[in-house]
């Protein structure tokens, strides 16, 4: 499978990348790790006239922990998230989730920014980011703005990011030490997207629950969090199931997906609760 031809650009900094997007309009597309985009281009499901490779933009890399906030550059790979010791200690759910994505080769390439910007409901990070109430920074010709992960996803592949904007970083308020957490994912085999997945954090009288690949966007279920925070596990599972809208596809019919979702959600809530200290 060979994609259609394109012009290749490798800008050295963010301003040049944004200016390429402005110049070429909807002909242009950025590439980060390429592990969602290249397969789509090979299938000719994505048509790109100008490919803007972000790899040389060093300011979009790296993990910075500042007090209780972590800011992760969009180009940070899933592999780098997994091997960052301090991040694994302060935000273990991120590592748990990243380890469930695809396989080692994909994780060396795939970036956090690409995973959250892509808008594919199968991507695992968007649900987790909604669970953690993360904030995305996007930058375009009119400057930078911040968008909450919970407000970012509109429908499959449609997000609040403008065509000329680049997602530069993800910031997350670190949960208090002792917060229980779990990312639970059911997949058919290694390297597959979720049939159903659920991210949960619980502790300090609050809880947050979000789900992956159970609707055309990630789903943050506020009611499920409220129920779980009050210790009502059955009520929390029911509230989460009420919030999803799975569709039939090669991973199974709707009834099967609802069944798997129920199991996965309950396991995630149980495991997060068991892990919560104090």
């Amino acid at each position, binding site marked *: *499978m060979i994609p259609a*031809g394109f012009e*290749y650009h490798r800008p050295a900094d963010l301003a040049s990348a944004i200016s390429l997007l402005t110049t070429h309009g909807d002909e242009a597309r950025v590439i980060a790790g390429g592990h969602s985009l290249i397969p789509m281009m090979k299938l000719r499901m994505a048509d790109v006239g100008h490919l803007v490779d972000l790899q040389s933009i060093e300011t979009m890399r790296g993990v910075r922990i500042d007090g209780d906030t972590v800011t992760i550059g969009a180009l940070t790979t899933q592999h780098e998230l997994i091997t960052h010791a301090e991040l694994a200690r302060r935000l273990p759910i991120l590592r748990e989730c990243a380890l469930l994505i695809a*396989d*080692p080769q994909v994780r060396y390439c795939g970036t956090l920014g690409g995973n959250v910007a892509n808008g594919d409901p199968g991507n695992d990070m968007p649900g987790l980011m909604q669970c953690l109430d993360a904030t995305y920074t996007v930058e375009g010709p009119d400057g930078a703005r911040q968008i909450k992960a919970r407000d970012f996803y509109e429908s499959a592949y449609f997000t609040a990011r403008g065509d000329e904007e680049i997602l530069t970083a993800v910031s997350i308020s670190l949960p208090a030490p002792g917060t229980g957490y779990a990312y639970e994912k059911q997949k058919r085999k290694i390297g597959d997207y979720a049939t159903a997945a659920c991210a949960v954090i619980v502790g300090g009288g609050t809880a947050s629950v979000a789900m992956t690949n159970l609707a055309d966007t990630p789903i943050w279920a506020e009611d499920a969090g409220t129920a779980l925070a009050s210790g009502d596990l059955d009520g929390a599972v029911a509230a989460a199931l009420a919030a999803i809208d799975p569709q039939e596809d090669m991973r199974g019919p709707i009834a099967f997906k609802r069944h798997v979702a129920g199991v996965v959600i309950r396991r995630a809530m149980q495991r997060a609760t068991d892990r919560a200290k104090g």
Partner: protein
Amino acid sequence: MSKMHVKFTLNGQEVEGLAEPRTLLIHFLRENLRVTGPHIGCDTSHCGACTVDMDGRSVKSCTVFVAQANGADVTTVEGLVNADGSLGVIQEMFREHHGLQCGYCTPGMITRAHRLLQENPTPTEEEVRFGIAGNLCRCTGYQNIVKAIMAAADQLNAQKEAAE
């Protein structure tokens, strides 16, 4: 579309050529450079037969444009031989432990094992299995592949100790 000039390091030597940016790295390696160690198994980013080492990462070269590899440091299974051209340790252990049958997955497996052992020189069996989860083998059932990688780890560590 116009061709671009690409230049990168392959198995320690500088290589260059003209290619359309859309050329996949695997095609450039096999067809332009005639380096045919990396194989095309699935062409859909799943099987790992096309795995090469790029800037210290195992990557599927069917999912990388040659344009992205411009300036990179790439190693294929051909680059994992000893200086005298004899089989490198991982390659030798695959031979000794019968870590292959048809051999189609082998270059990808060995290249992946190379990076895995660089990052984790003393892996458990479970870590080896998790570490090669991106490489499919239709023949062996993996048992001997895992054995070969574990044996290679032991040998490499023994060599390192002897050198110290």
